[in-house]
Every structure is written in structure tokens, then in C-alpha cells.
């Protein structure tokens, strides 16, 4: 039991930065994983996996996708054009586009994961 707990304690920090990015702020937690590319969004009425996830990198890294419940199209813009090193932190924005409005959430903090 002790060994399990120890293993878990050691694994936890690694798991928390697993994936491509982990973004938080403005009431959201967004986990982005690669291979396959997946995104999960929690907060402000969302608690769902995002579909149609696509990533592009130009001046920034941009990850887009959509959700059905609630219906929305999402765009996470991470101010990291170079896919920095694991553990690096970057500023991010989230655009939530819905039938009701287009809302911009600024000041997300995104930590680069291991993927």
C-alpha cells in the first residue's frame, strides 16, 4: 500500500503536465492532449470533450473544436509558436462562439506538457 501511494505521489506531478497543454483561468480548465489530438473543457457551463479538434501553428498555436452541449465553437490561442519545453508556461486566450454571443476570455495560463 505504501509503495502504491509513493508511486502515485511521484506520478502525480508528471500526470498533471501530461498532454500538450493544460490551460486554466477565467473559470476554465482546458486539457489538450496529442496523439490523438483531444481537448477537454471544464467550467462556465462546460464539462465535455471537444470534437473536431484541430491544431495549427503560425505566430501562435491555435487549437479549435466544437461542442454540442452547449452548442459552441471554441478557439484556444496560445502565445507559443515554438512548442516550448515541457513545464514552460504561456499566456492564452479562449474564444467561445455560440448562438448567443462571441465571448473572448483572456489571461489563461497554459503549461506545456510532455506530448
Amino acid at each position: 500500500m505504501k509503495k502504491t501511494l509513493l508511486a502515485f505521489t511521484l506520478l502525480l506531478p508528471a500526470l498533471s503536465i501530461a498532454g500538450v497543454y493544460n490551460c486554466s483561468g477565467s473559470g476554465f480548465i482546458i486539457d489538450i492532449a496529442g496523439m490523438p489530438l483531444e481537448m477537454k473543457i471544464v467550467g462556465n457551463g462546460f464539462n465535455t470533450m471537444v470534437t473536431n479538434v484541430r491544431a495549427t501553428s503560425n505566430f501562435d498555436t491555435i487549437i479549435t473544436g466544437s461542442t454540442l452541449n452547449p452548442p459552441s465553437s471554441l478557439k484556444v490561442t496560445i502565445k507559443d509558436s515554438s512548442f516550448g519545453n515541457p513545464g514552460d508556461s504561456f499566456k492564452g486566450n479562449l474564444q467561445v462562439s455560440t448562438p448567443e454571443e462571441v465571448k473572448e476570455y483572456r489571461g489563461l495560463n497554459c503549461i506545456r506538457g510532455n506530448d
Partner: protein
Amino acid sequence: MKLSAIIFCLLFSFAALSETKLSVDLAIDKLQYQKPPKGVGKAGSLIFKSANVNNNGIVLNVNNVNKIFDSQIFVRPTFLGFTTQFGDYGFSLEPNSVINSVNQTELLNSKLILDDNQLNVSGEFLSFINIDSSIKLRTFRLYCQNLSDQNSPLPSDSPANDMVSNCFRFLTLNGNYAPNNEAAILEFENKDKDTGDKLFLNAEVRSFDVRKNQVSANFKAARSVSNDSYFISADNLNLSCAKDEDLKEMDLNKIKKACLNELKIAPLKASIVDKAAKTNFNLDIKDLTVLDKIAYFTLNSGSFSDTVSTTTISNLMLNFQKETETDLLDLIQVLKDCISYTRLSIAEIKNTKPDEKDSAVKNILVNSSNGALLVHAEAKYLGIKAKVTITGRIALDEAQRQLNITVTDARLPMGINSVKLLMYFLKKTIVSKNISINSNIITVSL
């Protein structure tokens, strides 16, 4: 839905490119477009605040701070060009591009987001004006979402077509141009090329939603005018109806057919005014439902006025057969179905004429089945309450646009059984411009 395609194509046309990955985020102050004569030449202007475009990896982020990107539009059948102070840019168009079908359009103070997942356009004003039709939207938001996942077929080489097909599966139109703006204002005008019939529709749209197999609408108010003489108006119109899941293009007949075969309209008050015939209907509708080939119509009350009298109806319930092909807006087709199967009950019909005593018929029940007709009613005549049962046949003369009711049996009060006596009383009471009686046949002109 065509709207979304046109907005998209008008602003950007990338159809000529081999890959079609595209994202657009625009803030537009004013776009004016007028197709030049012969389709070649100056075509308007574009004034915008900012543009963020990623077209197959070519990224353009413009903040048009000093208006140096304000553009004049130039068009050819296969090219859309923009000229600015600093230089020119432009896009190739497909010869069959939807932009070539646009005659005139205007967009004011609007924001547009378009990418793989969505079209989201909100604005103060948008218009499309063609020779025979026009559509105008004020203080609106239009949102279409891509419902397909990554396992779905790959996007076609036309982002416009892809977005249109998305809009046929998930579209919302509402007034969310600004917070607390309750409704979008929609104006639609059309002149039928064949008949010359004119239609004008004005609606305050709280929401209009297209989903996979359903269309629903919530209008704060709706008014229509046909041929400048036939006015229909309704407040708080809520309706939902079925939609063909595979709908991929704007096929009005297909949309109408699916909708009229599975329809639900919530309670509403409506009025219909025919200026030419000088008639006026006021309806307090409780329910209108079409389901499984039966139409259900319930009226709390209604009144019908012409130049000489007013007829009021209370508590009407009508069920009738509705064949799949029947157009509910075509009276002849509806009557044809009604003759096959109808159940009608009306608590009271009252007729008021100036300088005459009111006349009323109560507890009316009408059944028709394959042309056989049975009517029960209670009428007051000379102060005496009289229960009447009429049996007969009903037939529709489509060519003459006439309904012919042949009375074969009539049971009158005090055990009297006389068709002749019934026809005598009916001649005194119901004969009018549209209703005539000859022997035992009542003819109603439609």
C-alpha cells in the same frame, strides 16, 4: 441558409485553391456591393476595423487603424478584387460562384467568424436585394455549426458548400447582436415570376432554429401582406415542425412538405384582413397540430366580419385527414381530405347583423367519412330551441371550385322528418353571395 453562403462568398472566395482550410475573423463597418452592368467593373466598397484570416497557412492579421485597407471592390465573373491606398489584392472565383448571383448587398457594423466549425455573423444590418426578391435583417446573429466529426467525409473543395450544408443541420437566427436585444428584425419581399403575386413578410424573430430533423421558430410578431390586399398578423408565434434529415439545399417545396406533415403551433392570436373582399378574421387559436396524417385544430374563439355582418365562433375543434401530399395552405386540397375524414364540433356560431335580431346555432357536430355527411345542431327559431339532424352527401367540384352538399334526410323538432322544410328554413337563413340552395342541394362557392 443561402445567406450564409453569400456572406461567405462575398467576402472571401477561395474555391480556386486546392486546399480549403480557412478561418476568418472580421469586424466590418460597412460593405456595399452592387453588381455592375455586364458583371464587370467597380462593384462597391469595404470599410473594416480588423481582419484575421488564415487561408491554407497564409496568415493575414490586419488592424485597419488608419483606414489604409479601406477598399473599393472590383468584380469580374471569375475574379473579386479589392483596391486600397497601398495596393490591390483579390481572389479568383468559380464561374458558377454564388457571388455572381448577388445583385446588391449591404452589411453594416458586423462581425464575422468563419472556420471549420462554424459561421457566426452578427450585425446591425444586412440586406440582399435581387430583381424579384429582397431580404433584410437588422440587429441579428446567425450561427451555423459543423456537426460532423473527424470520421465524417473530408470537406469538399468548396468551403462555401460545406458551410451551407452545416447550416442545413444546425442554424440559429436570433437578435443577439447586442445584449438585451430581444429579436432580430426580418423583412422579406418576393414577386412570383410566374404569377406576379407579391408577398411582403415582416417578423420580429426571437429565435429561428434549424436542427438535424427539426425546425422551430419563436416570433415576437409576424406580419405578411399578399398582393397589397391580404394581411395576416400574429403575435407570439411559436412553432416547431419536422425537417428532412438529409436536406442539403434550399428546396422550399421539400422544406414545406416535411414541415406541414409534422407541425405544432402553440396558442396564438392572429388576424386576417382581406381588403379586396372587405373581410376580417380574428382568431384566438388554442392549438394546431399535424401528426400521423391527421390535422388537429382548436379555436378558443373567432370572428368573421364582412361589410354587412359579423359571425362569431366559440370553442371549435376540428380533426381531419391530411394526406402527405396535401398543402395545408391550399383550401381545395384541404377540403378534399376533409371529405374523406372530418370530425368537427363548435359550441356556438352567432351571426350579428345591424337592425336584425341575432341568430345562433349551438352544439354543432359534423362528421364526414368518404363523402357521407352527418350534422347535428341546435338552433333557435321563433324563440323555440330546435335540435336538427341532417344526413347527406358532400362532394367537391374542383373545376367549379364548389362544395356540393346533398341533403338526403333531415330530422327536425317535434318528430318532423322533412328535407323540404329544412331547405325552406335554410333558404331564409344561410343563402348569401357564396351559398345557394337548389332543391335539396346546398352549393358553397369557394
